[in-house]
C-alpha cells in the first residue's frame, strides 16, 4: 500500500512539475484572470449605459422573453443580465462571463497534455526501465493513471483558484462567503472535468504507442467534443419553438415599481398596495405579466429538462449544466430566472445547486471510473 501511495505521489509530482503542463495552466489562468477583469469592467460599463439611457427609474423584472437558441443559453444569458444589473459584488458574475470558453479549451488541454505521456516513454525506451522494476504492472498502471489525472486536476484547480482570487483582489470584487464556496466547488469540478480527458489521452497514448499519432487522435477527439457542442446548440436552434411574448412595460410601470423601493432589495408591492395606489395601467400590466410569466416558465422548464439529455453525449453540455446551477446564488434551480417569483432569501446552499445537476455529476464520475478501469487494464497489459 505504501508503495502504491508513493508511486501515486511520484506521478503527481512529475505531472505538477512538468514544464508543458505548467505553461498551459499559466495560460488558462491568464485567460480567466483577464476575462474576469474585463467582465467586471463590462458590467460597470453596461450598468452606466443603462442608467444613462433609462435613468435610475428602471425596475428589475422577471425575464419574460426567450430568444432563439437553446434554453440553456437563454437561462445562462438571462442570469448574466440580471447579475449585470443588480450585482452586489463577488466573483460569480466575472467568473460566469469568462468561463464558457474553458468548457471547450480544458478538454483540449487535458487531451494534449496526456497524449504523449506513455507513447513517448515507449518510443524513448524509458518504459522498459520502468516496467523492469519489481512492481506488479497493474499496481504501476493504477498509480500512474491516478497520479496523472490527479496531478492535472490539482494543477488546473490551483491555477484557476489563483487566477480567480487574483482577479477578485485586483478589482476588489469582494469575497462573499457563499460565492467563494461556489467558486471553489466550480474550480474543483473543472479540475475533475479536465482529468476525465487526461484519462482519455492516456488511453489513446497507450493504445497507439506513437506520440505523433496519439497527438493527432487527441486533436481529433477534441474537435469532436467541440463539434458535439456546436451541433447540439444548432440542433436546439433548429427545433426552437415559439414562446409567448409580452410588450415592454410602459415607463409608468417602471416609475411605479421604482417608487416602491424596488431598485435593489425592495419587496414587491402587495395586492392591497397595488389596488390602493397603482394606476389602472400598472395594475393591468402586472396582471398580464403574471399570467405570461407563469406560462413561459412552464415551457422553459419543460424544454430545459429535455435539453439536459444531450449532456449524455456532449461533455461541454454536461459541465455547462453544472456551471449553470453552481454559478448562481439567486434561485434553487437556475431555470427559475424565468419564474415570476423572487430570488430565494437566504441564498440557497451549494449542495442544493449540486443536487439539481446530480445526473450530470453522476455521469461524469461514472465516465471517470470507466476510463480509469480501462486505463488500468490497458496499462497492466502494456507490452514494452
Amino acid at each position, binding site marked *: 500500500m505504501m508503495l502504491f501511495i508513493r508511486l501515486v505521489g511520484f506521478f503527481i509530482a512529475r505531472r505538477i512539475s512538468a514544464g508543458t503542463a505548467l*505553461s498551459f495552466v499559466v495560460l*488558462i489562468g*491568464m*485567460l480567466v484572470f483577464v*476575462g474576469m*477583469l*474585463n*467582465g467586471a*469592467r*463590462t*458590467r460597470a*460599463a*453596461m450598468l*452606466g*449605459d*443603462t442608467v444613462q439611457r433609462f435613468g435610475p427609474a*428602471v*425596475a*428589475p*423584472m*422577471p*425575464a*419574460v422573453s426567450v*430568444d*432563439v437558441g437553446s434554453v440553456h443559453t437563454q437561462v445562462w*444569458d*438571462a442570469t*448574466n*443580465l*440580471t447579475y*449585470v444589473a443588480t450585482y452586489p459584488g463577488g466573483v460569480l458574475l466575472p467568473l460566469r*462571463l469568462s468561463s*464558457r*470558453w474553458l468548457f471547450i479549451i480544458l478538454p*483540449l*488541454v487535458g487531451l494534449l497534455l496526456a497524449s504523449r505521456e506513455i507513447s513517448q516513454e515507449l518510443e524513448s525506451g524509458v518504459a522498459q526501465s520502468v516496467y523492469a522494476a519489481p512492481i506488479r504492472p497493474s499496481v504501476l498502471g493504477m498509480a500512474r493513471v491516478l497520479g496523472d489525472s490527479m496531478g492535472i486536476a490539482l494543477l488546473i484547480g490551483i491555477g484557476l483558484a489563483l487566477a480567480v482570487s487574483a482577479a477578485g483582489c485586483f478589482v476588489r470584487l469582494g469575497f462573499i462567503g457563499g460565492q467563494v464556496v461556489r467558486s471553489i466547488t466550480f474550480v474543483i469540478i473543472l479540475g475533475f472535468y479536465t482529468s476525465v480527458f487526461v484519462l482519455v489521452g492516456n488511453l489513446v497514448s497507450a493504445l497507439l504507442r506513437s*506520440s*505523433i499519432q496519439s*497527438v493527432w487522435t487527441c486533436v481529433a477527439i477534441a*474537435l469532436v467534443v*467541440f463539434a458535439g457542442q*456546436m451541433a447540439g446548440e444548432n440542433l436546439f436552434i433548429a427545433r426552437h419553438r415559439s414562446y409567448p411574448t409580452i410588450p*415592454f*412595460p410602459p*415607463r409608468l410601470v417602471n416609475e411605479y*415599481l421604482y417608487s416602491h423601493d*424596488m431598485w435593489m432589495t425592495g419587496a*414587491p*408591492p*402587495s395586492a392591497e398596495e397595488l389596488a390602493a395606489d397603482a394606476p389602472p395601467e400598472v395594475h393591468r400590466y*402586472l396582471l398580464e*405579466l*403574471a399570467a405570461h410569466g407563469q406560462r413561459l416558465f412552464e415551457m422553459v422548464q419543460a424544454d430545459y429538462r429535455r435539453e439536459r439529455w444531450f449532456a449524455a453525449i456532449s461533455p461541454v453540455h454536461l459541465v455547462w449544466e453544472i456551471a449553470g446551477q453552481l454559478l448562481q446564488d439567486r*434561485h434553487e434551480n437556475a431555470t427559475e*430566472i*424565468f*419564474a*415570476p*417569483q*423572487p430570488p430565494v432569501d437566504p441564498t440557497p446552499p451549494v449542495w442544493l445547486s449540486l443536487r439539481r445537476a446530480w445526473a450530470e455529476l453522476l455521469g461524469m464520475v461514472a465516465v471517470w471510473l470507466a476510463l480509469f478501469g480501462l486505463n488500468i487494464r490497458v496499462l497492466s497489459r502494456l507490452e514494452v
Partner: protein
Amino acid sequence: MERVASWGGAFLSMTPIPRGAVPGQVLFSNEGATGDDLSTSSLAGVMLYALPFASLLIGVAMSPPRGGESLTVLAAPIRRTVLYLAHVAALLCYVAAVMAISWGLCGLLLLVAGPSGQSVQHQLNGAFACSSLYAAIFASVGLWFGVWFRRRSAAILVGLALVIVLTGVFPNLGGLLTGSYFDANPELVQPTRDTGDWPDDPAFLAILAIRHTPANALQRILHEIADPTPTRLDSTCLCRVAWSSAGIINEELIALGAALVVGILAGTMIFMRRELCEP
C-alpha cells in the same frame, strides 16, 4: 400578484443587445457585446475560435517534412526561400479552397433555407475574404512552427498555446486596457465620442496593437458585418462612437494582412537557418 413584480430576471425595459432584429444579421449576430464570451456554437464563434486551431493544424501538417524528401529537393539547385514560399503558396491555395467550399455550402444552405438577396451575398463575400485571411495567418504560423520544432507534437502544443493567447487572452485584454486608459484620461472620452478617432497618445499605441491582433480584428469585422450602422456602442470606453464601417473593416483587414506577412516572413527566416535532418 405579489410574485409578479418581484425581481428575478433580466431587465424587461433594458434591451442592450437587439438580437436577430436587424435584417442584416443573417450570418452573424451582435452577440458577445454583453462581455460574455462569444458563443462557440455560432458561426462567428466557430470562425473566431475553431478556425485558428484547425488552420494551425493544417499548417503543421503541410510544413516541409524533415529528412529525405526535403533534403532531396534541397540538393537540387533551388533556393531555400523558394522552397518555403512554394509551401506557403500551396498552403494559401489550400486554405482558400477549403474556405470557398465552406462558404459556398453555407451560401447554398441559405439559398435553400430562407433569407437571400444582396445583403446575404455581401455578407458571404465579406465573411469569405476575412475568414480566409484569418485562417491563412494561423496556417502560416503552423507552417512556421512545423519547421521550427523538431517534433510536430511539440509544434501543435505550442500552437495551441498561441491560439489560447491570441483568441482568448488578447480580446479581453484589449477591452480591459482601453477601458483603463479612458478611466485614467476621462478628458479624452468626449473627443473620441465626437470624432471616432483614437487618441494620438504614444501610450495608446500598445493598446491599439493589441486591439488589432487577429482575433480582435476579426471580431470587429464580424460586428461591422452584422450591424453596419455608422453609430454603435463601444462598451469599453462608455461612449457611443461614430465610425464609418468601411473604415473599420479596411483598418482591420490591413491588420490581418500585416499579421499574415509577419507569419510568412518569420517562417522563411526560420527555414533559412534550420537543419532539415531527421529528429
